[in-house]
């Protein structure tokens, strides 16, 4: 009886929670959508060396596999101040923790900020909207 009573509540909670996450991620003004609940995205943020040091333990974990997709057009992805690759990126290996990201098409910056991968070994998808 208890289980039966709980099921609709659980379904309702799941149904309400899922679109909220997606909506919040995709309404980012810089056009970067995070397709993963465990990843934090902060647009227009910078990462200080002190913050990096704080995450030493987290960074020691197994790498995160990052996919970057575009919903149209073209772009190049830069991570932590260096060239990472041309979008779409597939299974790009990166340490867990916080990383600066910038996605640009020539002079135009499509998205930039700090993305934090909290779960070592996870696969994360970032979607860039032109």
């Amino acid at each position, binding site marked *: 009886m208890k289980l039966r009573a709980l099921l609709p509540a659980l379904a309702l909670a799941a149904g309400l929670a899922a679109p909220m996450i997606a909506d919040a991620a995709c309404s980012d003004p810089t056009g970067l959508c995070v397709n993963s609940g465990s990843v934090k995205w902060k647009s227009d943020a*910078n990462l200080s060396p002190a913050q990096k040091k704080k995450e030493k333990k987290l960074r020691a974990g197994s790498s995160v596999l990052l996919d970057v997709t575009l919903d149209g057009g*073209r*772009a*190049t992805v*830069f991570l*932590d*101040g*260096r*060239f*990472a*690759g*041309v979008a779409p990126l597939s299974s790009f290996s990166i340490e867990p923790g916080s990383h*600066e990201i*910038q996605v*640009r*098409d*020539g*002079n135009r910056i499509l998205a*930039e900020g700090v993305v934090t991968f909290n779960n070592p070994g996870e696969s994360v998808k970032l979607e860039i909207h032109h």
Partner: protein
Amino acid sequence: MRSTPRVRSTGLRSAALALSILVPTATLPTTASAAPVFGFAKSKKKKKSKPKAAPEPENRLTAQEAADARAPIQSRAQGMLDSDPGSAASLLAEEARKLGDPILFTDAAEAYKAQGAKAREVEPVESGMEEARIALDILYFLQDPRADAKWEIIPEGEIPSQIDRARNVLSEGEALIAEIEKEKAPPPPPEGSKRERTPAPKDGRGLIAGGSLLTVVGAGGLGMIGAGIAMGVDAQKTVEDPTVTGDAFDEADAKGKRANIITYAGIGVAAVGLAGGIALLVLGVKKRKAYRADHADTALHLTPTLGPGLAGVSLSGRF
């Protein structure tokens, strides 16, 4: 008494021991003071030997290191560029992606453009333009404060000239694509074939022509009737002649029958030809009149005019 020297000897031994300790410490050079002679020195060594976390690698790339990595790739590609620009371009593009080197990206762009120019194909030129765009992305990023200062993939002073170089590849690529597409466009049809036959005006000329032809056929039918009647009359006369008998009679009889056939056929041909022909002619003439009425509004008419005491030409028309 024996005990006194013993006492003395013990005192000497103690003094000798004290001296033996003091002399080496006093005479040792100051630099060797940290040598593991005393206990505290030993403990210092132990501290040093403790496993210490290795310092993180600096992960710095200098412009010189980047140039050193780039040079052999450029050299290999240069060797292939004349014979096989496509392979040279692929090599440069692949290595450019590994190093994130905008110079190699632009080199790849130029090699792809050369391949397109050689093969007169648009696709390699477009690939080259994409490589040039990636080079520009990196070059603009290097001017951004987010770029890592330790990542000197090219000397800072070279960035503007490399931007110009990549932009040139883009503009030249666009011009080359336009040129190739122009070459591949189907040739325009010759001037003569463009001329369309102007449709004949619907002024009843077809009806008049058809009617005339049928009337001629009808007239031919009338001729057949006439010929048939003439032949029939002649044959009739022969048959009615009492002196004509035997073969001559039979021949005249057959001739009469043929004359009848010709007459009947002539009647049919004349009836169809004349009736159809005249009908078509009437229709054609009506149509022509209507057409002329519609199209002669603005026409000018030059009419000779003659009268008593008058001779000349009158010009009339509607405007």
